[in-house]
C-alpha cells in the first residue's frame, strides 16, 4: 500500500474539511469556553458528526457504521485538531469502538449503534496517576460467581463526566505491575457506585476523575476474556495514540497556517517579517518536521488497518514524533506572533493549549521514546 491517501480517502478529506471548518471552527471553541459550558463540548456538533457518519467511521457496516479504518479516522481527527473542535471523538469513535470491536456480538449490539447514531459518548478510563502508566492497573475487580465488584479510581478521562459508557481497565488477578490479570469492562456511567468529577483543563476541555466504590457488573460487561484484557488494552492504546497524533497534526498545521499568514502580513522595520531569513529557516525546519510526523502517523494507521505486528511500535513512534513536531509548531507560532499571540483575544494561544493536552494524553514523547527503547531491547 503506498504511503499516501488513496482517492477515496482524499475524497473523504475533501468532505470532512469544509464540514468541520464550518460547523465547529475555532470560534466555536471560544464561544463554548466563554460560556463556561459544563459539558466542554457541544452535543449538537456531535450529532452533526453522527449524521455525517464520522462517529461510525470505524464501526462495521453490520452495526450501522462506515466500516472504514484508522487512516479515515485520522482524517477526521486531523480536521478536529485543525479547528480545535472540542469533541469526544477520539475516546468514543476510536478508543471505545476499537475496544468494543474486540467484544462479543451482544455487547457490540448494545453499544455500537448508539455510538453511530451520536447518542452515546464514551470515555476511556485507563490511567490511575497523573502520568500515563496504563501498564499499571491497580483498580480491583473482585469476582463472585458471575459478578464483578469494581473498586478504585481512574483519572484523566476526557469528557468522562458526560460519558454514557466508560471503558475501564481493572485488575482481576495478580498485582499492579503484572502483565497478566487485567480485564477490560464496559461500564455504564450511571451504574451505582460510580462517582465522576470533572476538571476543566487548560484548553477548556473537560477531563474526569472516576471513582468506583464496589460497582457491580456481571460477565456481560467484560470485553474479551477475563484476565486477558492486556491485548485489547494494547490495541486500544495503539489506536488512540495514532489518533491523538493525527489530532496533534491538525493542531500543528492549523497553528502553522495562521503563522505563515501572519509572517506574510506583519511588517516590522519596514519589511514583511516573513522575509527575514532567520524566520524563514525556522519555518522551513518546522514544515519538514511536520511532514515527518505526518508520514509516521499515516504509517502507523495503515499498519493498524492492515493488522501488521509493527503497528504497536509505529503508534509509539507516531505519538512521540507528532508530540515533538506539534510542540515545536505551537511554540514557534506563539513566538513568531509576538505580543499579540500572548493575548486571549487572539486564537493562537488556543493551539498551544490544545497541543499540550494532546501531547500528554496516552503518553508524551518521553514516555514513548522510553517505550520504544524497551521494545527494542535497550
Amino acid at each position, binding site marked *: 500500500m503506498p504511503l499516501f491517501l488513496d482517492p477515496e480517502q482524499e475524497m473523504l478529506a475533501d468532505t470532512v474539511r469544509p464540514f468541520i471548518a464550518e460547523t465547529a471552527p475555532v470560534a466555536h471553541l471560544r464561544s463554548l469556553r466563554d460560556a463556561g459550558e459544563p459539558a466542554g463540548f457541544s452535543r449538537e456538533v456531535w450529532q452533526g458528526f453522527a449524521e455525517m457518519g464520522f462517529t461510525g467511521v470505524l464501526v462495521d457496516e453490520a452495526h450501522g457504521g462506515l466500516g472504514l479504518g484508522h487512516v479515515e479516522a485520522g482524517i477526521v481527527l486531523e480536521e478536529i485538531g485543525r479547528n480545535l473542535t472540542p469533541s469526544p471523538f477520539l475516546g468514543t469513535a476510536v478508543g471505545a469502538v476499537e475496544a468494543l470491536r474486540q467484544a462479543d456480538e451482544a455487547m457490540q449490539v448494545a453499544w455500537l449503534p448508539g455510538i453511530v447514531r451520536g447518542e452515546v459518548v464514551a470515555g476511556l478510563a485507563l*490511567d490511575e*496517576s*497523573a*502520568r*500515563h502508566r496504563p501498564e499499571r492497573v491497580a483498580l480491583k475487580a473482585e469476582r463472585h460467581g458471575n459478578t464483578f465488584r469494581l473498586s478504585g479510581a481512574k*483519572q*484523566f478521562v476526557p469528557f468522562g463526566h458526560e460519558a454514557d459508557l466508560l471503558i475501564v481497565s481493572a485488575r482481576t488477578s495478580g498485582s499492579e505491575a503484572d502483565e497478566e490479570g487485567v480485564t477490560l469492562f464496559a461500564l455504564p456511567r450511571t451504574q451505582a457506585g460510580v462517582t465522576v468529577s470533572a*476538571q*476543566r*483543563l*487548560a*484548553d*477548556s476541555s473537560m*477531563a474526569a476523575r472516576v471513582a468506583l466504590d464496589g460497582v457491580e457488573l456481571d460477565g456481560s460487561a467484560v470485553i474479551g476474556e477475563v484476565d486477558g484484557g492486556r491485548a485489547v488494552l494494547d490495541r486500544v492504546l495503539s489506536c488512540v495514540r495514532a489518533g491523538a497524533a493525527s489530532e496533534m497534526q491538525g493542531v500543528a498545521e492549523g497553528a502553522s497556517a495562521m503563522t505563515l499568514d501572519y509572517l506574510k502580513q506583519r511588517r*516590522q*522595520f519596514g519589511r514583511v517579517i516573513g522575509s*527575514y531569513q*532567520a*524566520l524563514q529557516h525556522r519555518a522551513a525546519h518546522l514544515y519538514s518536521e511536520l511532514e515527518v510526523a505526518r508520514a509516521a502517523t499515516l504509517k502507523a494507521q495503515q499498519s493498524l488497518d492492515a493488522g501488521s505486528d509493527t503497528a504497536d511500535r509505529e503508534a509509539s513512534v507516531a505519538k512521540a514524533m507528532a508530540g515533538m513536531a506539534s*510542540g515545536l509548531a505551537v*511554540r514557534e507560532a*506563539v*513566538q513568531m506572533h*509576538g*505580543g499579540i*499571540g*500572548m*493575548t*486571549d*483575544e487572539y486564537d493562537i*494561544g*488556543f493551539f*498551544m*493549549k490544545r497541543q*499540550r*493536552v494532546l501531547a*500528554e*494524553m496516552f503518553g*508524551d*514523547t*518521553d*514516555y514513548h*521514546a*522510553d517505550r520504544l527503547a524497551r521494545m527494542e531491547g535497550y
Partner: protein
Amino acid sequence: MADDLEQFRRETRAWLEENCPPEMREPMRSEKDVCWGGRTWTFQSEAQRRWLAVMAERCWTVPDWPREYGGGGLSPAEAKVLRQEIASLGCRKPLESFGISMLGPALLKYGTEKQRLEHLPKIARGEIRWCQGYSEPNAGSDLASLATRAEDRGDHFLVNGQKVWTSYADQADWIFCLVRTDAAAKQRGISFLLFDMETPGVSTKPIRLISGNSPFCETFFDDVVVPKDQVLGAVNDGWSVAKYLLGHEREMISGMGGRALGPSLPERALRRAGRDAEGRLDDPVLRARIALFEVRSHAFAAMSERFMDRLKAGSVHPAQASMMKYLGTELNKDRHELLMAAGGSEALEWESEASHGGAAARAWLRSKANSIEGGTSEIQLNIIAKRILELPEA
C-alpha cells in the same frame, strides 16, 4: 578588607535572622506572593508589611543606591554578601519594583538633582509604584516608529496616544513613558516623560492573556498635561535613556532563568513522577532532559553572577544585557516546559483547587511572553550579532 567583609557578613546574617519574619522565608508559591508596594497596595499579610518596613528603614530595598537618595550605600562587595545571605536564608524579596530595577538606574544617570530627590526615596520605600510605557500597537520590537505624541505647549507638553503591554498600569501610581516630541526625526525625536497616572486624561484597560491573567494593560492618553520639568534627560534624547533602561530591564527579566523561587525542577518532578527501583526519577527520558537542563541552569546561574559582577565593575559590553535577556528567558521557557511534562495530566488542570487554580499551566503560558516582552529573542540575537560579533548589515 576581607575581615571587614566577614564581619559585615556575620552582622548581616544576624540582622536578617532577627528581622525577617519566618513567613517571609518560605518559598513564594505564585505571583500572588510578590509585594509590589505603591499607594493602593494591600499587604497580603502582616509579615509582608513588616518585612518591607524593616528593610526600607535599613535602606536595603536598594542596598547599593547612594544614601542621599534612600539607598543603603553598600559597596559592590557588601551588596553581593547581602544577596548571598538573603539567598542562603531564603528570604523573599521585600519589594518587587520597576522603579528599582528600571527607572532608578536611569534617574541616577540622567535625572536632575530635584528629580532624584523627589522620586528615588519613594521608590526605595515602596511608596510609589511605577509602570513603563514603551510599546505601542504598531511599534512592538520597533520603537523607532513610536506614535504617541507630546506637543510643546510652552510650560507643558500635551500628550495624546496609546500604549500597550504596560505592565500593571492599572495598579501603578506613576508612569515613565516614551513619547514623540519631533515628528520629523525617527529615534532622535523621542523624549522620556514621567507623570502621575492620576493626571486627567490617563486611562487603562487590562489585556487578558492566554494564561487567563491580566498583568498588562492598554494605556490611553487623552490631552494629558505634563509639566516640562518631568522630562528625564534632554528633550528629543529619550532614546538614550530608553536604551540604558532597556539594558536594566533585560537584566531583570534574564534573572528569571536562574534558580527560580520555590522547589527546584528536580524536586517538583520527583513529587510527581516518583522514583524507580534504583532511586532515580521514574521516567528515564524526562530525567535525562531535566539533567541536561540542570547543567544549563547551573551554568546560567554562574553566568548571571559573572554578569552582575562585571556590571558593577563597569567591564561588561552593553550588548551583553541582550545576551542575558535571551538566555534567561529561553531557559525559563524550557523550565516550564519540563515542569509541565513532569506534572502530567494534573499540571493541565486550570481551575481545580488541587492545582492551585491552574498555577502550573498558567505560569507555563505566562513564561511564553518572556522571550517577547522587553525585546524579542530575535531582536536580542540581532543585537548580539551586530554589536558584539560585528557582523555586517544585509
